């Protein structure tokens, strides 16, 4: 039986300028329910890859599909949960944890009017799941970096996503919080069967939990289970390719 993959990139090439390719002949397939980490050095093309997966950029060549539909025209966007890089989030907005997580229900609840009761319940459930119920009504900026990151993860899962995409989720987060984030994602993946695409400049703590590691340096130079990753590549910024 043919099962439609969550993500499918087929011979994808992309450049922000015609003479400079950021990605070259990338092939990647994520089955539903997989937990995959994508790493690579800065400038290696991983954020571009993520933007193509999410349909925010269109490949110059090749195909990018989300659940079988062209990614840039994907019609069921509410099934996507997305955690942007921290630098792109909220600025100095004086938001509480609950207000941040409520933003995750925007696609489902619609633009007009307040959140409905079911939306508010799902927001509370997501906050509880990441263990922030005690500080649900505290301003985000009064919390630690790790707790702020969990609030944004709660926002991403409040939409009840089928595919959760995380962009550099461990930037600016201490080692202990990185460990707890990796364990939390593993529970989320196991309990809810959410497909997870984890993009980072390093594999780090998440390496223990993922089914596949993908190393991107303009093209995919490794794609396989963690145990098969050559030792020298555990640090993706390593110069020896």
């Amino acid at each position, binding site marked *: 039986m043919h099962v439609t993959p969550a993500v499918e990139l087929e011979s994808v090439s992309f450049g922000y300028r015609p003479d400079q390719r950021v990605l070259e002949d990338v092939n990647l397939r994520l089955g539903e329910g997989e937990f995959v980490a994508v790493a690579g050095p800065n400038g290696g093309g991983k954020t571009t890859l993520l933007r193509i997966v999410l349909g925010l950029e269109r490949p110059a060549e090749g195909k990018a599909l989300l659940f079988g539909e062209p990614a840039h025209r994907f019609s069921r966007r509410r099934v996507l949960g*997305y955690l942007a890089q921290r630098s792109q989030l909220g*600025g100095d907005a*004086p938001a509480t944890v609950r207000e941040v997580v409520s933003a995750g229900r925007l696609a489902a609840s619609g633009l007009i009017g307040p959140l409905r009761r079911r939306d508010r319940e799902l927001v509370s459930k997501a906050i509880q799941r990441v263990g922030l119920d005690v500080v649900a009504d505290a301003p985000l900026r009064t919390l630690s970096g790790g707790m702020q990151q969990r609030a944004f993860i709660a926002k991403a899962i409040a939409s009840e996503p089928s595919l959760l995409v995380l962009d550099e989720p461990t930037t600016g987060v201490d080692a202990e919080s990185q460990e707890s984030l990796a364990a939390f994602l593993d529970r989320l993946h196991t309990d809810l069967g959410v497909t997870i695409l984890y993009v980072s400049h390093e594999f780090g703590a998440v390496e223990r939990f993922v089914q596949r590691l993908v190393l991107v340096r303009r093209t995919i130079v490794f794609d396989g289970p963690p145990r098969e990753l050559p030792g020298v590549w555990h640090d993706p910024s390593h110069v020896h390719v």
Partner: protein
Amino acid sequence: MFELEFMRLALAAGAVVGVLAPAVGFFLVQRGQSLIGDGIGHVAFAGVAAGILLDVSPVLTALAAAVLGGVAIELLRSRAGAAGDQALAIVFYTGIALGVVLVSAAGALNVDLFQYLFGSILTVTRTDLVLIATLGAVGLATIGLLYHALAGVVVDEEGARVAGIRIGALNVVLGALAAVTVALSMRVVGILLVAALMVLPASAAGRIAWSMRSTLVLSMAIGLGSALAGLTVAYYADLPPGGTIVLVAAAVFCLALGWGALRGR
């Protein structure tokens, strides 16, 4: 002062603008677009000049020009690839240049023009007040209906884009709201100070509030208080109302800054 008809009209107009301007300004400040009100104000100046030249209501021509300016800033930013501050500068300078040319053509460099540049709240008529109250109510209702969406985009614009939210449409609505606010506030504080009434209360509230919702409500309360207190001070001290209102808002901002510093924010 309440026994005077012109003061009652001025206080009512000041109250509407005092609430509306910070409510719109709140979203602009949170999105790092504090100066949009200024850019739109300069386009509104061209609209006022066109109204004087064509002998039609300058408030209506300013409203039309301001809405066009607000939408133009958003289109230049999103479609023509201009950075946010470039889009603002292009509209800002084009507006002021057009205004200067039209004012010169109308031979209107006089008191009529100055009342739009610096405000003339004491000359607000009942008809003006009906227009200000009606458009103010529409503006506040729009913010109430779209609050959740606008707040969501403030929290995480890229996330909202991934979720399929029509950010461009929301930005155009916000630009149009800013334009309506500018056109209505012209008579209260004047084109040159209108952005201050959008930005200062929202910035002050951000220093002392504890959530986005409380920041919005506090912004509106500070705007309302500044408008009413500024008008009262202006009446008894014989000062220009527009400037006095903005100075009161600036004083509240300084107090909020001190309060925030004491609380370590």
